[in-house]
């Protein structure tokens, strides 16, 4: 069995009096593709925020595999977690809007950069060399995602679907081990969603990373996920393969209300 790369232990968070995430235990293994579903307000995004370090849990812990063993990262801030190999996209798109598509990707490479600021200040040959190298890498990423044509567009000028896609490219540019996708298909039409479905599968294959995905589009989730967690009221309601979940009475009820 593949190594467990991410694990939570009774993870909980309270906002005011409301327990948004309640005693959640999930785990993800290397190169696994996990779907996280549940009705609106079930706590999915909050769980993402706990895993990526945006929120501090009220209780429980988050552990990440650091190459040798699972390590508690409760007190590791988001940027350090990113350096440990966690990348994400956001439900409400968060691009660097004043930057071009290419620059968005280049910024994601900040922590891997070897270029010294001093080199940039004096525009040494080293600066140009390093910049060219980074740019080549970024462009090749954009190539994979078919975004070369818009590389010099401002991120804010892209259509919605493309913006979502750029967020994924940007996240991948950090060379993550785990990629969190928060509703990547939101706002996409069925054709776009179909393309995205293939893309997610391809990412998993090409980059050999673990992907955890929140999504409402059942076609997509069912098509790509190897395993699903269903959240309701901040609790894990069910877990299993897509076909298990589709048969699960409780899930159908939670999702479609009563009948289904």
């Amino acid at each position, binding site marked *: 069995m593949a190594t467990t790369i991410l694990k939570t232990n009774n993870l909980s968070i309270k906002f005011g009096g409301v327990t948004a995430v309640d005693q959640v235990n999930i785990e993800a293994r290397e190169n696994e593709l996990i779907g996280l579903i549940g009705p609106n*307000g079930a706590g999915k995004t909050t769980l993402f925020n706990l895993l990526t370090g945006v929120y501090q849990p009220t209780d429980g812990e988050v552990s990440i595999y650091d190459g040798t063993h699972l390590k508690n990262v409760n007190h590791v801030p988001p940027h350090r977690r990113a350096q440990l190999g966690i990348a994400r996209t956001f439900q409400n798109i968060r691009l660097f809007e004043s930057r071009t598509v290419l620059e968005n990707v280049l910024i994601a490479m900040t922590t891997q950069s070897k270029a010294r600021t001093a080199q940039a200040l004096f525009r040494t040959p080293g600066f140009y060399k390093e910049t060219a190298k980074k740019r080549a890498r970024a462009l090749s990423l954009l190539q994979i995602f078919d975004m070369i044509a818009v590389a010099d567009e401002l991120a*804010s000028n892209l259509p*919605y679907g493309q913006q979502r896609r750029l967020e994924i490219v940007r996240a991948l540019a950090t060379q993550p081990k785990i990629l969190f996708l928060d509703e990547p298909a*939101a706002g996409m*039409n069925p054709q776009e969603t179909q393309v995205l479905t293939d893309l997610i599968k391809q990412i998993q294959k090409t980059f050999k990373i673990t992907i955890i995905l929140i999504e*409402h589009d059942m076609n997509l989730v069912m098509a790509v996920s190897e395993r699903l967690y269903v959240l309701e009221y901040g609790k894990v309601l069910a877990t299993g393969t897509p076909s298990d979940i589709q048969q699960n009475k409780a899930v159908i009820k939670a999702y479609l209300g009563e009948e289904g």
Partner: protein
Amino acid sequence: MVEAVLRVENLSVNYGAIKAVQNVSFSVNPGEIVTLIGANGAGKSTILRTISGLEKPVTGNMSFEKQSINHMSSEKRVSSGIVHVPEGRRVFPGMTVQENLQLGAFTVANKNQHKVAYNNVYEQFPILKTRRHQDAATLSGGEQQMLAIGRALMANPKIILLDEPSMGLAPLYIKKIFAIIQQIRDTGVTVLVIEQNANQALKIADRGYVIESGQIIATGTGAELLSSDEVRASYLGG
């Protein structure tokens, strides 16, 4: 043939460079429940926001009771009877339930009408009556949604625009909310509702429109759409 109470023709709305709504036309007849369904970001909310004046259309015409409302201010639209319950409820958190309701009746000058409206709302939502001195922030999601709807009813609406009323609610509340929507219609108020919970919405709707990427791709009665395989596949999962 009845004259539509709300008519939208060739409406297009942009957010910067993004074309959020393209050439959308539809109408709502008096006393109907009409639903717009579609994926997140399909442009449903934008349509409602444009009808209530929060967004400016690029092209197209909107008319309410045969009068164009394109250039009417938002306040005027409210006082003429178009009331919008926004996505995410947007109750005023630091104010009490009663104050929220009072704000709902902001455009109603007649104090006697206020009293009638209070009674109606409290009758329909007894829980709001018991909590009337509580801050809105302390209400649960479902209660907040009721408050948002109650607040809209205070304005004496002719048509009520509901944006995702079931969002984030427990099934029990969802059921309640849809029952309330029907009740509202039964009192003679026309309803235009956006839902992701397409299943429920179509069940109570007289008619529905399916929106995708800012365009209407299908229309029909609630039952027709509900039985359409295509719609089922897209919005109700495999």
